[in-house]
């Protein structure tokens, strides 16, 4: 109950800050993701226009590449927000000198993850509605399957938030490390295969990388979440093993993240404070 109250308080504050200036709120929610997915739409669209009977690996076919990309952009948005929200918010709060409010408040630091996550979820709601709505328009699915997909997106978000809390330590404790965590995000994004099927990497043309990368992706819970979403959306099946794997990470990662964060906090402190 306490965790819920704290999370709601933090979420309310975050939403209040987000909607203070309404235009950036909508452009960040809607226009930026559209710009991000546009190159992939153009490339896939161009390819399938020239090769109408072709099919790439996975679920990328002429009739499914659009919803494939919209599901991918939704997953990428949740990952990007989850990964970078803490570092950007903490950096801003450090400059605003409001970080002390969180440090000095008698709250469970786990509520930072749930509260900020909930605030971001509310702020991301227009994006979710737009892209999932478009994906649904092209390939409708049953209500129960839709609920399952939403739950998997939430689990993906939770894992991303947990990774983000650890990387936010760079923002707080040593700003020199921030760029490296930025590059790490690109690597994680690549092996999560948001915009392409992982099968395209399983090629001899890439040499050892072609053997290595798909293995890495298989152990990546974010890729597994993508895999589950695509399996439910395009095939109507729920891969139970992958669900258990993702659920395990979604439970363990916030606890581990809070532990690491508290440990670093108490030993290193905030740079510049």
């Amino acid at each position, binding site marked *: 109950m306490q965790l819920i109250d704290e999370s709601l*308080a933090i979420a309310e*504050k975050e939403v209040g*800050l987000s909607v*203070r200036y309404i235009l950036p709120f909508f452009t960040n929610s809607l226009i930026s993701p559209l710009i991000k997915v546009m190159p992939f739409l153009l490339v896939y669209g161009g390819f399938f226009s020239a090769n109408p009977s072709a099919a790439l690996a996975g679920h990328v076919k002429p009739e499914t590449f659009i919803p494939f990309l919209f599901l991918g952009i939704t997953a990428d948005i949740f990952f990007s927000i989850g990964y970078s929200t803490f570092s950007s918010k903490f950096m801003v709060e450090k400059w605003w000198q409001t970080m*002390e409010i969180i440090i000095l*408040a008698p709250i469970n630091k786990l509520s930072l993850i749930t509260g900020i996550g909930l605030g971001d979820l509310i702020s991301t709601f227009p994006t979710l509605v737009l892209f999932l709505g478009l994906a649904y328009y092209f390939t409708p699915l049953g209500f129960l399957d839709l609920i399952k997909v939403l739950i998997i997106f939430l689990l993906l978000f939770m894992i991303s938030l947990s990774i983000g809390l650890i990387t936010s330590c760079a923002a707080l404790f040593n700003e020199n490390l921030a760029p490296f965590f930025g590059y790490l995000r690109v690597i994680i994004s690549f092996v999560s295969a948001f915009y392409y099927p992982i099968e395209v990497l399983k090629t001899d043309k890439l040499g050892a990388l072609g053997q290595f990368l798909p293995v890495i992706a298989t152990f990546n819970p974010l890729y597994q979440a993508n895999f589950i979403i695509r399996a439910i959306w395009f095939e109507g099946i729920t891969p139970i093993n992958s669900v258990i794997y993702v659920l395990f990470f979604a439970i363990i990662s916030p606890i581990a993240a809070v532990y690491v964060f508290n440990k670093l906090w108490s*030993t290193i402190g905030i740079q510049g404070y």
Partner: protein
Amino acid sequence: MPFGIRENIEPYSGRNVIEAENVVKVFKKNEPTHNPLKDFLFPSYKPFTALNGVSLKIKRGEVFGLLGPNGSGKTTFIKILTGLLQPTQGKVLIHGKPAEQNLRRIGVMFGFNMIYYRLTGYANLKYSAKLYKVKNYKQRINELARMLGLENWLYSYVENYSLGMKSKLALARALIHDPEILFLDEPTLGLDPKISLSLREDIREMDKTIIITTHNMEEANELCDRIGIIKNGSLIRVGTPAYLKKLVSENIIVNIGLAFFGNELINTLSTQPYVHNVSLSQTGVRIYLESKDYLPKLLSILGSYNTTSINEEEPTLVDVFIRLTQGEVPPARNPESDDEDTGTQMQEPI
């Protein structure tokens, strides 16, 4: 506490609510060489001792002032007392436990920081109220707004507030959960005298243990039961304002009104061994004398000038501060037990 938190706080019956023992804080100070490549590849860090073995006990209900020059370690010490920073050595206990276990008991104000400018005053207070699980937070917010004169601005964005209102909002935020102990870091910094006075009155009416850092001597003199003077990370003297003034009581300050005078008078006076300080006043000069015994010598120097008035005044806390921090009065070997005259009756422990 009518607006207290839902959970019970263990009662504490000790006399000292805050105990700091031999607190040392050493920072790693980055010293750039102005060669960007060298600074990037081989950054140079030197240890910087911000606090050098500070020990202090603060009693329940006491208003304790921490004075010191800029960079003396006041804010660092406050941050360690509140748990924002960890000491390199030593320990700090609040109600017999570390600060992190006493977050509900303490309220902190760092000037007009710790408020969100993009939110309204009400949203700021509501946020803190919810984090501290304050019951009936709406009532509490309205009560604080009335007390601090913020009612008409509560629903405006903080970015539209004046500096004084931001300070008051920051104080309201620190008080939202009715803490037993209040830490105020420069609460009246940058405020005009009227707002400062209003804020001081609000603080004076609170029945809490308050630790306040300030450069405003009048404020310290008016508000504090005891004052600690900190210099270069060390606590050099602790005592009531009356006791600290006694340290320089043999000194007197003489205000001399002069019809006219020039720099040569100032230079002549400044070179006298019994004159600590000479400053200009509206009517003439203000002279800080070693003792009354030197008054005749002083008057003999002024004999050739047209003296319009002479009056004496007791040293103020400003004078104490200047003399202590300039090393003209030696620091106490043990500042904590230096306090011979507590001056006021402390609140009896519960």
